[in-house]
């Protein structure tokens, strides 16, 4: 990875920070309004407004505000949430583990199942099993995550009543050990299934397409001619080579670990980053929206950066035409 690409990432970071800073301040009207939101502003007395304007330095020139904002970020101060009455950073760190648990598990499960089904299906191209799987996944791929979540919630949560309608664990239950774990899993099941169902189709379709293309390569013919068992060709030759796009895709998905469950978390009221973003928007809690945006953007930039850094090691072929 060349210096040029590193500069790209730094530029992206600058854009993120500037958007975060300038968007609320350049909108017409009181910047306090954009930072705290209408609802919070109505309850403030004029003295409080003046005090807040002074304390946040909104009366100072823009460049000085920008400098203060940057130094705040460096110190780990992302602002104070008016709606939740707490520092933004604490709220984010509280939500992060739940999201990572949900999206991480979903990523692993959907990639594994999607890959295996993709290889088996591509191998049997044109046969009944392949046709069935392909059609099924095409349909599944047509359902947005929002809709899959709704179906599961309605069917298993509301109608059958098998699973809780929301939350990550039973509140005030004081469970410990195994029963706590079971309780968490019980709450996790529906959002996790919804997320796996959303993600699995794209992994399957990608693997299948790769496998179908690979099967026409000369080295597969050579392997057959040498008399290698079909099972070995399927996984050692075809499967291994079709891993590459899957690895790339998983790298891209890693960045989505933080926002990918936005709708599903909202539907199941699962207390992760997605629900936090939703609540922040609902409560017009601008410090929180900005905090989430900043943190998530930075983490995704970092992940993408490392994926790009590692990728030439996995596939030496990209090294020559890398940036």
């Amino acid at each position, binding site marked *: 990875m060349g210096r040029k690409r590193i500069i790209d990432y730094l530029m992206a970071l600058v854009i993120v920070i500037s958007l975060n800073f300038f968007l609320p301040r350049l909108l017409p009207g009181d910047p306090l309004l954009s930072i705290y939101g209408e609802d919070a502003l109505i309850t403030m007395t004029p003295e409080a407004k003046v005090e807040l304007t002074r304390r946040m330095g909104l009366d100072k020139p823009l460049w000085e505000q920008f400098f203060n904002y940057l130094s705040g970020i460096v110190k780990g101060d992302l602002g104070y949430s008016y709606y939740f009455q707490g520092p933004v950073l604490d709220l984010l760190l509280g939500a992060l583990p739940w999201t990572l648990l949900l999206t991480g598990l979903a990523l692993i499960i959907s990639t594994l199942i999607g890959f295996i089904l993709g290889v088996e299906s591509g191998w049997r191209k044109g046969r009944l099993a392949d046709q069935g799987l392909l059609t099924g996944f095409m349909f599944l791929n047509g359902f947005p995550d929002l*809709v899959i979540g709704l179906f599961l919630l309605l069917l298993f949560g509301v109608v059958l009543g098998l699973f809780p309608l929301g939350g990550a664990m039973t509140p005030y239950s004081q469970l410990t050990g195994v029963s706590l774990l079971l309780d968490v899993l019980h709450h996790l099941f529906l959002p996790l299934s919804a997320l796996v169902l959303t993600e699995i189709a794209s992994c399957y379709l990608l693997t299948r397409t790769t496998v179908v*293309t690979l099967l026409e390569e000369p080295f597969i013919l050579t392997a057959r001619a040498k008399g290698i068992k079909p099972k070995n060709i399927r996984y050692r030759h075809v499967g291994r080579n079709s891993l590459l796009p899957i690895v790339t895709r998983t790298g891209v998905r890693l960045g989505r670990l933080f926002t990918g469950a936005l709708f599903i978390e909202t539907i199941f009221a699962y207390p992760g980053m997605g629900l936090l973003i939703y609540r922040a928007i609902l409560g017009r809690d601008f410090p929180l*929206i900005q905090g989430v945006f900043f943190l998530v953007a930075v983490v995704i930039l970092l992940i993408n950066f490392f994926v790009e850094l590692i990728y030439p090691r996995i596939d030496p072929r990209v090294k020559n035409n890398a940036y």
Partner: protein
Amino acid sequence: MHINYVRGFKENRLGRLGIIFLALILSIAFLAPVLTAYSPRQVSENIFQPPSQKHWLGTNDLGQDIWSRVIFGARTSFITALSVGILTVTLAVFIGCSAALLRGIYERFVLRLIDIFLIIPNILLLLLTAAYLRPGPVTMVIVLSIFNWPGCARIIRAQTLTLQEKSHIKAAKTFGAGTFYILVKHIIPDLGPILASSFIAHARRAVFMEAGLAFLGISDPLLISWGTIINRALQYSYLNNWYWLLPPALGLSLTVMAFSFLGYTLEEILNPRLKVGKNAGD
């Protein structure tokens, strides 16, 4: 290579299905005022009515007829999809082609801009801008297109560069054709298949992004959107109101599916290797 689109879509099961779905949604959106006796915005005292002869899908918390809201939602969804598709592809053609034709420092600038934009996750950009701007239908289309063009522009630039090396374009140049003439008469028509599949992909994205933003409550609350209906219904899901939750969800899926199937069929027509039924593994 000559491509027969009509035959391709006719021969492909998913393609036929996509066209049927699209026609269905399109006619519902078009005929919406004829298909219902109620205005989608009309508030009444009959709140939380279950489905009946009078209200096919019952009424919501404000006493509005859910069926009319769902079919008028199809209009919002469709118009957004078409506008975003057209605007995104136009932007991408304009920027991608100009970069490939003008070259030089302008091209380098555009490429860097695209690279940087592609790094930043655009769902976040969308959320942030939408949260501040509270977009109405027009702003929504503009915002969605502005964040979607870079990927498409990059493909179009690359393809334009390849096309420029083709002999028919070189021939046109020797006859004295200007850059603009070549762009309009040769390059853009040759880009046809790519433009079509980009259009479908972006229209599809626009459908669920529009519904998604409305679901999160970031778009104009007065807009009749499937996302808003779902959000509203979800707040009363303990009433077991499937007749309120499912129809907008189905409409949304049907539209997204229609675009997915069309996109997939187009991909298969353009890349016949993907076609089912040849060269099985063993």
